[in-house]
Each structure stands twice: as structure tokens, then as C-alpha cells.
């Protein structure tokens, strides 16, 4: 029986690096994209490191991991890495092994791509698979959307890169709020209170404090709480604090779509995604309305953006009023903010477009 020990820290990254990286650590000079999914990094020493980037469903079995390990053993001397968007990267020092590796990946049904002006893997959350607060599933929508956008993963024909992320509730453990297109599960109804059990399971002061809109008040008579319906914005934070405040409502939980966010500082700085579509139905197993909406957004942007222009830059140039006109998306009262920073989004100039 192994002895318990604690606080040993993560495995040392240095032990995970192939010799070519150890020899050229910090010496990389430039990189090029040789073809979709294949990068070469060239060192000051002249050494060349090839990366083959492949898509993954993120929710993977140990058998999948062993398969990609077999390929890494066969082609990469046993070294590989993962990207911040859950892609697999095979690290090769021998250029002649690139195409055989890609062939083997294809045989396993693993696509190669996600580089340059493409749509790379969708960052996403757990959804119905393993979370207790979701308004929708995560893996299912991601699979359905990526099936539809597949050609944009394996090619680089878009005006710029496009980043999609999905979070299945406002907790946003995927922090999707700065994506070109964000898919966000939302609740739309005031939580139902289980007065019977609330006082046994939950701390009332913590619960009232958990509400960002001060909609929750104690109800001393029932040793419970009450919710001012007109103040509740359905964020679900109270449910996170207390299982007796039921936010999940399968008849009303839905999906919303947000656009024009980005992370990087290149050109225009990072910015939040903004509401494009407040409601799409939760329609498993393939969410056709969500898939269709995302695809249309990608294609409208691709048809209208200038080379190098990301979603946010395109919208900046044409204006939000033109965005709604060109996409044909209805503009509703849901699009006008009424939370804490609402006034920063109202227009204070006579300059606008028709």
C-alpha cells in the first residue's frame, strides 16, 4: 500500500519536453503554418519543430488517450501536448513523419486543423454530463455545431480566426464572455422555493447575500425566504448556495447567443461578447436552431468582413445597427442592458446609421 503524502506539486514540465524542445527552449525565432493543422517553429539554431494539431471532443475515454499515446510513441518519441482549447498537439522533429501521422489520425476519425484563419475547437463546460446547475447540455451542442462547421476547422478560408465557446449556465466555468461567438445556457424563470426543506439545508443570510439584484428577502414566518419576482434576473446564484431554491426549469431553460468578444490584444483590445440572440430552444439531441444560428453568423461575417477582420472588428466598422440589419436578427428589449452597467451601453451621440 502506497504511503499518503501531500503537496508534492504538479509533475515537472521539464520532464515532459522532447529533446528538440529542451535544446531550443526560448530560442524559437519564427513559425509558419505549412498547411491547415501543421505548424513549423524554427529555432535560432536552425532546428525545426513540427506541430500537428488535432481536434478532440474533450470528454474522452482512457482508450482514446491510449490511442493518441500510441501515435505519439510512433511518430513523436512519446511526447505530445494539449492546447488551451482542448486540441491535441503532436510534436515532431522529423518532417517526413507528418503525413503518415495525419493519415493515422484520419483513420481514427480525429481531424487535423484549427490553425490560422479557422474555427478551432470549442471551449466548453460539463452540461448535463456532470453538472448540477446547467440550463442546457454542453458536449451535445458542441458536437452538433462542430459537425456543421467542420470544414472551417480543416481549412483556413475565413477572413480571420473565429473562436466559439459554450457555457451551460451563467456560472460560466468556461468563461465564454469574450468569444467571437458565445453559446450560453440561460434560465428564464424565478426559482421555485422548497419552504419545507430550506431551513434544514441552507443558511438564510448567505442566501439573501448571494443575490446580485437583492431580490431575496428572509421570510421569518416560514423560516425560509421569498423572492421578489420583478427583481430576479434568473442568474441561479441562489441555487448554487442552496439546493432548496430550484432554478432548473426544463420548460423554459434555453440557449442564448453572444457575439463580438475577443481575448487577445492584437489590434483592438480584449472585449466582451454582446447579446445577439436572447432565446433559442433547448432542442436535444442536435439543437438544430442553435446550429443554424451559429452557422449563419459565421457565414454572414465571412461574407462581409475584410481580410484579417475578426467578428468584433467587423461589427465595429459597420456598427451594431447594421449588424442587426445584415444578419436579420430581431433587436428586442432583451438587447438593451438593465443590469449594473446599463448606462455605459446607451448611445450618447446623434451619430448613428440607418
Amino acid at each position, binding site marked *: 500500500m*502506497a*504511503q*499518503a503524502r*501531500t503537496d*508534492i*506539486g*504538479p*509533475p515537472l*514540465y521539464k*520532464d*515532459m519536453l522532447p529533446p528538440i524542445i529542451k535544446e531550443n*527552449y*526560448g530560442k524559437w525565432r*519564427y513559425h509558419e503554418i505549412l498547411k491547415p493543422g501543421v505548424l513549423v*517553429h524554427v529555432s535560432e539554431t536552425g532546428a525545426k519543430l513540427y506541430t500537428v494539431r488535432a*481536434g478532440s*471532443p*474533450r*470528454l*474522452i*475515454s*482512457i*482508450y482514446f*488517450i491510449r490511442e493518441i*499515446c500510441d501515435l505519439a510513441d510512433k511518430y513523436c518519441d*512519446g511526447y*505530445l501536448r494539449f*492546447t*488551451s482549447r*482542448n486540441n491535441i498537439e503532436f510534436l515532431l522533429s522529423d518532417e517526413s513523419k507528418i503525413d503518415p501521422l495525419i493519415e493515422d489520425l484520419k483513420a481514427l*476519425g480525429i*481531424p487535423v486543423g484549427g490553425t490560422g484563419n479557422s474555427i478551432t475547437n470549442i471551449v466548453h463546460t460539463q*452540461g*448535463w454530463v*456532470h*453538472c*448540477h446547475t446547467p440550463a442546457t*447540455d454542453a458536449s451535445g451542442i458542441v*458536437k*452538433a455545431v462542430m459537425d456543421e462547421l467542420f470544414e472551417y*476547422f480543416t481549412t483556413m478560408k475565413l477572413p480571420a480566426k473565429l473562436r466559439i465557446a459554450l*457555457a451551460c449556465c451563467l*456560472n*460560466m*466555468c*468556461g*468563461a465564454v464572455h*469574450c468569444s467571437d461567438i458565445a453559446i450560453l445556457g440561460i434560465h428564464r424563470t424565478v426559482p421555485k422555493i422548497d419552504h419545507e426543506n430550506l431551513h434544514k439545508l441552507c443558511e438564510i443570510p448567505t442566501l439573501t*447575500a448571494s443575490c*446580485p439584484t437583492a431580490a431575496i428577502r428572509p421570510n421569518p414566518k416560514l423560516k425560509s425566504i421569498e423572492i421578489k419576482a420583478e427583481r430576479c434576473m434568473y442568474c441561479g*446564484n441562489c441555487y448554487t448556495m442552496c439546493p432548496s431554491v430550484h432554478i*432548473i426549469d*426544463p420548460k423554459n431553460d434555453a440557449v442564448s447567443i453572444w457575439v463580438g468578444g475577443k*481575448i487577445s*490584444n*492584437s489590434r*483592438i483590445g*480584449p472585449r466582451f461578447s454582446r447579446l445577439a440572440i436572447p432565446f433559442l430552444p433547448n432542442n*436535444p*439531441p442536435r439543437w438544430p436552431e442553435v446550429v443554424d444560428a451559429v452557422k449563419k453568423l459565421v457565414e454572414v461575417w465571412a461574407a462581409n468582413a475584410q481580410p484579417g477582420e475578426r467578428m468584433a472588428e467587423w461589427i465595429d466598422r459597420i456598427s451594431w445597427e447594421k449588424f442587426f440589419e445584415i444578419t436579420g436578427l430581431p433587436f428586442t428589449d432583451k438587447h438593451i442592458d438593465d443590469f449594473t452597467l446599463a448606462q455605459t451601453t446607451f448611445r450618447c451621440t446623434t451619430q448613428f446609421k440607418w
Partner: protein
Amino acid sequence: MTEAKKTPLLDELEKGPWPSFVKEMKRAAANSPSAQDLLGQLELSYVDKKAHWKHGGLVGVMGYGGGVIGRYSDVPEQFPNVEMFHTIRLNQPSGWYYTTKALRQVCDVWEKYGSGLTNLHGSTGDMVLLGTQTDKIQTIFDEVSNFEEHPFDLGGSGSNLRTPSCCAGPARCEFAMIDTLDLCHDLTNEFQDYLHRPMWPYKCKIKISGCPNDCVASIARSDISIQGTWRDDIKIDQEAVRQYVAEGFDIEGLVIAKCPTKCMSWDGNELTIDNANCTRCMHCINKMCKALRPGDDRGATILIGGKAPILQGAMMGWVIIPFMKLEPPYEELKEFLEKVWEWWDENGKTRERIGELILRLGMRNFLRAVDLEPIPQMVQAPRANPFFFWWPEEVVQD
């Protein structure tokens, strides 16, 4: 093994060209009763349009306060093998580089004691092992932490320091201006206690990117965002610039016109950069990495307060230290972090993130607490309203 239930809805997600998570679940289900019941329960979720997990539950490893997340089915009578289906977070190596040996030995342990299903990786960066029972957690930890080579530790969960993560760094990227891998590993080890024993008002995340392209989304996804940058001039290889143009690269359209500060010009032979007006956005370097490189005076910008919407709305990190040199042993950064956490720990309410506390108590109080002077780089613009505080020592007292 219980009999495999039919999953007509999920079967639809085996179709199509993108790799299927349902296929992965079925592969695991062939050898694991819990993965099989997970599949059945997920099918039920697809029918009911709701999750079938109960609310939370405390489970853990001796000596740790986090790293394992309890999960219980709300339909255990239908799916007894997922009555308990807990998550274990393992702290990934910096930059998600692995040897196949490191991955295989985790797979072997997970085959013995878990569902065989994983996330590579979770949103915070951990290696996520999905689905085991309470009585197996300690054994799993004891085995992974005792691997002869590449032993693993738990990641963070709850109101603690969450597992720090970083980009590919200088191991595989020419843009890395700090050693993100070393810094991430060093900070993780330095602050093990904060990571493993929740004692703060709420979670705190650190993410480290080697350059302002911010490949780990640190500005949106971490309370403490560290992004490599530089202070001196961009290095230009004029011959390589001419080579780009000679090969038909549209330098005017794709670089000069897109420079956010219009600090570049191209006269057909020489590229000129007015570095004093450059805001180091990386665009020109991204586009012409054979010809342009960041300067040599390198360090990082530190931004604070980034988070997802709960509770007071989504926030992006705010510049708090425009430039800090970051060389081992990173003492200046560590001292700064300790000051931030001390102030937050002392003043934060339950479940108040650092950014929210700064908004509630005011940036001026935060700056005093962490001994920073206000400078214009911290703001987009100075305040426009005339409501503002004075310190007692700044006014004449009666």
C-alpha cells in the same frame, strides 16, 4: 454488469465528422458499469431536458480541503452505478506538455478505480477524472502521487487558489517574453497550501500568457492575469521585411493599415516604427514574425479582477502593474500576490472575488493596501464625476 440501456437520442450524436463524446462514453461503458449508467442517465437528461445530478456533496483526500468534487445522481434507483460519481482534479504539468508514460499511468489507475472517462482538460486547466466512488478516492490519490516518474498532485477546488495554468511558453513559441512554464510551476509549488486548503473568501485564479496574444484567456478567465510584454523597441530585420513584400505579402493592407496607433510606415524599402507610440498589441509581430521581434527589455503586465458573471457581472482584468520583471525566484511577484490575498482575505465577504471587492471598497483603498502608486496606465480615462474621496491627511482637520 447491468444490461446496456438503449440511447436513441445520444446515438444521434455519434453521427457527423467531429469526434464524438458519445462514442467515447460508449467505449468507457463497455468496461465500466458507472460509465454505462452515466450514458443511461445522460439519455434521460436528453429526454427530460435537465441535469440529473444532486447538489454538491463533500468528499476528499486526507490532508486536503479541495481537489475532489462530490457528485451524486438524483435518480440512483434507475442508475445505481452513478449514485456516487465524483470528480478528481489532477494538477496538470505547465503548458499541458506530457510524455505518453505520464498519461498512460494515469489511464491505468483510472481504469482500475474510475469510470474511464476524463476531460483533457477542465476549464481551469486541470486533468479532470470524471466519476468514481467515495471509497476509492484516497487510493487513487495515493497511487497517482506515488508514481515513480511524473507523480501527480491534486488541483484546486472550492474557495482556494485554483490550479494556475499557462500557455505553450518558450518551449514552443517565439512570442513568449517570460518563462510561463517555469513561473507557473514555481507559483504552484510556492502556494501549495493556498491551493489545497480552502481558506479564502472565494476562488482565486492565476493564468499566465507569454505575450499579449493571451492564448490562455487570462484576462477573461483569471483574477490574476500575467501577460508577457516588453518596454524597448521592436526589433526589425529590414531584409526579412523586404522578403515578405517581394513574396507578395500585402504589408500596407494587412499590417500598416491595421496598426491600432498608426505608428508604422513603409516606404517601399524600409519599415519604420514610432516605438514611443506603439502599444505592443502584437499584430505586426504576429503577421511578420520572420521580420519583427519584441524588444529585449522583457517582463509582464499584471492585471487583476477578471472573472465570469457570478456575482456582480463579468469582468476583465484591470492593469495594476504595467510592467514587472519576472526572473526566478519571482520574489517581487510573490510579495505582491501575498499582499493582494491578505487584503482580500481580511476584507472580502463570503464569495466575493478580488475584482468585486476592489469595486466595493474602491481602487484607492486597494492601491494603498498593496503599496502601489496610481498611474495613468491603470485607467482608460480619469473619472468624469465630481464625487470623490479625500484621505483625512489631505484636508485641514478642525
